[in-house]
């Protein structure tokens, strides 16, 4: 592989950094992230590989592509199946599965499902009597399709089905739940700039609106439209000490909701990840996730840094292909949570089989 060359990377990198600078200038100072807006269960990375690489996996993902960039379904050689699980601080758990395949010459399809929830919620009533144990549950399914436009360009599309269930009433003996489901769409475009660089743009959660129907006499709230995101991803393949070294970077911007109406809280996040294939069977991952940007970065740096948080990540990929005579990998990723819950970490583990 050629060594890292700044000349060749200059133009797309300049474009990428320029985009970041523009966002810093545009995002209002009072924006501090998306907390409180719907769809929080969708925003954490899916897949241990991405998890360990700072959640920067939009450009050129290798599996669970429907989550990241359905246009990248063409990374799949023939078929890939993946299965994984995760555990995060404060009893948040998740499980994911995916299946992707190509239909030569120009089509690719994929299906994934994701469970995320909190199985152990202790609740109390107005008089501080404990209620029965409660849980929060979400399911998300993505059905993806991609089209090979040219050797360098692909386009992709997701049809999503989402479900949520929350406790909305109860007593010491039992909990009453309310649930909602909806559909939504993602659209993606990927372009391989050259052998080293790939860029992608994904528009997520289009027309995704939840309408809750509460089960215990609460009136419906009306529509809760999720924030849409524009994910711009960039990947650069270089070398470090003679071994492949890959830098991936995502800028995730939230400016409007799924119905293209402006958001109250506009935000931009910067995720970066690195992968170093130091050994044949083991690749190391490290990254930084959820670095948010707004105008305070330049205008009020003291205030910006006083509330600054990021989630450092790390992980690895173990390639069992030689031992098993099959393209089989195990990925592990971990992230330090953003709220400082001691030394607790979020983790994901998954298994990927290419066949």
């Amino acid at each position, binding site marked *: 592989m050629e060594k890292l060359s700044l000349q060749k990377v200059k133009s797309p990198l300049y474009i990428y950094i320029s985009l970041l600078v523009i966002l810093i200038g545009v995002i*209002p100072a*009072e924006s*501090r*992230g*998306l*907390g*409180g*807006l*719907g*769809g*929080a*269960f969708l*925003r*954490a990375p899916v897949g241990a590989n991405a998890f360990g690489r700072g959640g920067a996996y939009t450009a050129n993902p290798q599996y669970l592509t429907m989550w990241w960039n359905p246009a990248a379904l063409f990374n799949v050689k023939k078929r890939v199946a993946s299965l994984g699980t995760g555990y995060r601080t*404060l009893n*948040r758990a998740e499980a994911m599965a995916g299946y992707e395949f190509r239909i030569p010459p120009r089509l690719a399809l994929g299906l994934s499902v994701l469970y*995320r929830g*909190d199985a152990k*919620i*202790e*609740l*109390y*009533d*107005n*008089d*501080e*009597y404990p*209620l029965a144990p*409660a849980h*929060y549950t979400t399911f998300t399914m993505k059905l993806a399709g991609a089209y090979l436009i040219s050797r360098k360009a692909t386009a992709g599309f997701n049809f999503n089905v989402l479900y*949520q269930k*929350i*406790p*909305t*009433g*109860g*007593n*010491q*003996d039992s909990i009453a739940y*309310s649930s909602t489901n909806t559909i939504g769409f993602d659209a993606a475009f990927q372009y391989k700039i050259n052998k080293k660089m790939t860029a992608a743009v994904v528009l997520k959660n289009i027309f995704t609106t*939840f309408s*809750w129907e*509460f089960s*215990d006499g*609460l*009136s419906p*709230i009306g529509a*809760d439209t999720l924030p849409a995101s524009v994910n711009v991803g960039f990947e650069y393949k270089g070398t470090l000490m003679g071994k492949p070294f890959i830098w991936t970077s995502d800028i995730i911007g939230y400016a409007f909701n799924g119905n293209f109406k402006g958001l*109250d*809280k506009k935000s931009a996040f910067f995720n970066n990840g690195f992968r170093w294939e130091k050994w044949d069977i083991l690749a190391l991952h490290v990254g930084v996730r*959820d670095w948010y940007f707004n105008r305070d970065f330049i205008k009020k740096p003291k205030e910006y840094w006083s*509330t600054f*948080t990021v989630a450092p990540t790390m992980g690895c990929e173990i390639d069992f292909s030689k031992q098993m005579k099959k393209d089989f990998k195990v990925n592990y990723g971990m992230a330090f*949570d*953003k*709220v*400082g*819950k*001691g030394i607790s970490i979020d983790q994901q583990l998954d298994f990927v089989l290419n066949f």
Partner: protein
Amino acid sequence: MSSIHSNDYSFTKEILSNEMFTLTGDSSDVWIISVNGLNVTTDITENPVQWTGIKNLFCWNMASGGGYALGRTTLNGYNDFDKTGKPTPLWFAPINNLQSYKLLNLPFNAPVGELSYQMAEAIYYENAFWMACMDGGIVRLNPADQQMETFAPVKDPNVHIDSYDLHSLDFSQGKLWIAGKKALWMFDSSATDKQWTKIEDSVISVDYYSDLRVRSTADSNTILFVTAIDSINESSSDTTIYTYDVKKNKWATFLKNAGRYVSFSFGHKNEIYLLDNKLNRIRLFNAPHDQITNDLTKPFGVEITQIGQKSVDYASRVNNAEGAPVGSILSEIRYVETPTDTLLQISSSEGLFYSNNERADNINGTPFTLVRRFVPIESELKKTYAYPGILLAGTEGKDSYATFAYNLAEDDDVTIDIFDYNMDHVIRIVDKAPRKAGKNTPQGRSTNLKEDRWNGTFKNRSGSKTVAPGVYYFRIKTEKGNRSFGKIIVAKS
């Protein structure tokens, strides 16, 4: 959020609920009915006050006296009939041994499902409990042997049944005074023939009598204070409080527009406390009998808003009670004078406010003492939770705010933040706010009920907005390095 109660009574030393309604007592004992049952103290002037709780006992129309207590039970907190359709029984107990309570049936062979023979109000007088039992008349209960006698006005076939419906009673000068739906009665239990006298009220136009209180005067007279509802149409009606001077046989108007639902208590000398539930405010009036006129259009009640240099501001005294939360909904008010104390008590949705030295002409402006349910919490932030845990954001009731319960081992500055499922920051509730260690507070916890709460919103450019439904996580951290986490569900209404 509703709770399902059974009628299995259990005894405890805890305050059962902060959502308190009925307030009654005799002298310094206080009985409170809340959403979770009954709490009682035999002496509210003790320090500390000792409480007994009976979970799942919902006794309306309670009375106490002579060392006994009596009330009307309900099934599940609201049904006046038991599972067979008969009126629910009375609960009767000696105050010093509540566990030896008895359930007594009223002496009526009422048709199954008939409400018109239930006990509507009870008082203790002349060594007995007297109950107004709607169309059943008056029942006298002897506490010693629980024997009951029934007394009823002679049924006049020309008088519509609505004239009875006896629901409110009081005593003065050896007589019982009783309000029915459309008529007022005096019952002389000492007379040989147990005489009933209907009070002439044709000069006032009354749709419905809702309450009756009686005051004895120094000259052995009796003044009735009668609350009348102007119309049965709840949305548009109000009440008028009339007075009836028994000796002079004269009606007068004490107060117009007293409030659709009003809790009434005589105060010191000629003072009267009114708690207007609709407006959620306490008013203090003077009812000087020498100001009574015959002109029913001119109310003679005078509202007291200032005594000497001090304003009579009960709202601020309620809000300034130590640890008082905001947003209390006031339920009932009660004033009692004993030989040594003047007691004022107010039940509310956030606990019991009380003062043991409430002299209307010597109000010192100190806040009330607040009695609330506080569950012991481990200190050093070992445990924290929000209550209620299911928050109905965007509503106005008790479930519209979640309060954070926590206990510090030592005084410290506290920051409370809310995060969503992805640990994105939602809102900061308090920022380095000074809090006392739980051991240094009367409630045994560090929570500031006014500030340490969240209504399910976040700040945006236009002010604030309700968060999306889901699970949220709160973090309490101190400057000395301790931290604790808890969970809240936000469900919208």
